[in-house]
């Protein structure tokens, strides 16, 4: 064996020392990575979601769209007011509701409801939606985010818990309504939209935006 290939006793110990440190670092990396990614892993499979009461049906008159607030089900002691969330409740008839997130489907700014023109308008980049949440105009690529709803014992509840964002619609009715398709085809008689297209779309049944 030539001199260059010889490993000295000190050299071997140094390499073993580096290896030992590498092993310890790897072992310590496991809890660090798990800690850092806990906000992702905790929320797997809709774990952040639960059914939240919005209030008795009497608070939401039929045929109207009203602002409601609820407390996010995941609360930390330091959250303050940030866990209070607003949403738009549209009472169609009987037990039939549409509950929209206030967050614009474009970039999440809070949309406002205009009863007279039947539009939701966004103050940020000018997105607009029809009363059924479908896209009317502006930059959004889809309609408003919608929470699944359920009526139990006269109380309207929604499944909520996550910030709705364009890339993620877990727990939100996920179908993209085609841009204003249902609204563009309106006869001059106008007035009220026939119930058929709206009522069957809601509650229990999967939505179809044919």
């Amino acid at each position, binding site marked *: 064996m030539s001199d260059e290939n010889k490993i000295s006793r000190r050299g071997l110990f140094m390499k073993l020392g580096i290896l030992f440190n590498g092993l310890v670092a790897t072992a310590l990396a496991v809890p660090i990575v798990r800690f850092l990614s806990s906000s992702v892993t905790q929320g797997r499979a809709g774990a952040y979601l639960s059914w939240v009461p919005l209030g008795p049906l009497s608070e939401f008159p039929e045929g109207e769209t009203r602002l409601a607030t609820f407390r996010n089900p995941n609360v930390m002691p330091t959250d303050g007011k940030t866990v*209070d969330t607003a949403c738009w409740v549209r009472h169609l008839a009987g037990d039939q509701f549409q509950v929209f997130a206030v967050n614009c489907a474009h970039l999440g700014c809070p949309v406002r409801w205009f009863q007279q023109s039947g539009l939701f308008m966004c103050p940020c980049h000018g997105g607009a939606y029809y009363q059924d949440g479908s896209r009317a105009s502006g930059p959004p690529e889809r309609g408003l985010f919608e929470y699944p709803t359920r009526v139990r014992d006269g109380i309207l509840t929604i499944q909520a818990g996550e910030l709705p964002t364009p890339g993620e619609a877990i727990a939100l009715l996920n179908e993209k309504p085609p841009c204003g398709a249902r609204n563009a085809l309106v006869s001059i008689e106008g007035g009220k939209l026939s119930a058929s297209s709206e009522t069957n779309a809601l509650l229990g049944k999967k939505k179809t935006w044919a």
Partner: protein
Amino acid sequence: MIEQIGQWFDRRLQLAAPIREVAEHPVPRNTASWWYVFGSAALTVFLLQLVTGILLALIYVPSASEAWSSLQALNHDVTLGWFIRAMHGWGSNFMVAIVLIHMVQVFLFGAHKFPRELTWIVGVFLLLMTLGMAFSGQVLRFDQDAYWGLGIGASIASRVPIAGPAIVKLMLGGPIIAGATLSRFFALHVFVIPGMLIGFVTLHLLMVVKLGINEWPMPGRVVKRTTYINEYHELTKKAGAPFVPYAIWKDLFFAAFVLLAVAACAVYFGPFGPTGKPDPTIIQTAPKPDYFFLWLYALLSLLPPSLETPALLIGPVLVIIGLLLLPFLSGEGEKSWRRRPIAVLTVLLIAITLGTFTHLAGYTPWSPHMNAWSGAPVPDEFLHGTTALQRQGALVFQVKQCRNCHSLGDQGGQRGPALDSVAVRLTQDQLIRQVIQGGGNMPAYGKNLTPAETTALVAFLETLHPQGQTPARDASRDVALGEDQAQRQSAQR
């Protein structure tokens, strides 16, 4: 006595010689210019931000429930708290501006070329960190704008394919914008990014000292990898002058001037916000980013929807890669801006684009004016000599919030076209179709207008034409209805 103490320390620290060497290293004489002061000014403002940042941390509470009130306390209760906040806020604006000016100057003077490629690359990372500090600082001012700004950030991040939702939860520290979100942005703003900044600034400065400051570019003096180092040594060793005091006095003057300017802005304009409480149930808000992100706000409104996600996700990556590759793509050749027209035009184009977007974001023509329908009545001159039906139409026009997007007499939204002379552009049939079916970025109103309302509204819209200019009409009507009847109709208008 003082000299003895100094020597006692230096025998142990042995720093006097290397410090003297750095201070007195020769620089090319013509670099002692007012154009060469922006780097040191950026460093000065960075130090100011460190000091004022630490001072703010003495009072600020990084908790979603307390942050807003701790800022109020700084503004109103703590002696000169408002001034320190204002210095930190204005310091941030100055820092972004000076870093950008420094970068443009370096680029136009060809300082990114051989052998200073790595200095430029480290500088690109310093720019990104500066912008990161600006954004995370805006988040720490935990008000309405910060809250909804985070929502916008989350919405952009969520569009990353596959990993989007995970990135959002990682960014927010949970399923929603809440306490954990503020805490992690606090950690980023106060520990992570400043730590990296200190490290990268040190590297950046080390390279400036080791490689020497870029000489004043002369048209015709071309950079070649083989000869540059020798040429530079000629400039410094033979004709150079020591950095201290030959060049540094200008840096010192400018640094003091910048600090004074920050303080003057702080005293005159005061601190930034906080605006309304970060309460997501208060939706009567139109969030806007801080000054240096306004151009992005405008871009996000003006991009066609189909281009938006690719532009948001791929655009920044391309820009950063382009900046990082720049010194390798043009590492040699002319340094002087006089011989680099494309470089000058590129800078001008970017500056004009960003300037235009920022200007547009100042008055947001794309946003509906939420209160125009109730706050801006139809001007009198549009109602003179109108019939009852047309006046009814003017009422429909207001009540149905058309004004939020359409202006009359310069008042109202600018989302849609001004309607002062709409009757010249559209015939009666076209008006009816546009109102009922929408199109071209206008919602369809068919469902929300009764036939009577539509008739009245269109009758009003048909009156909107300048005096002496006839409204648009469908020529085929003359044939279809008979000329007499068509004329009688237009006479009624």
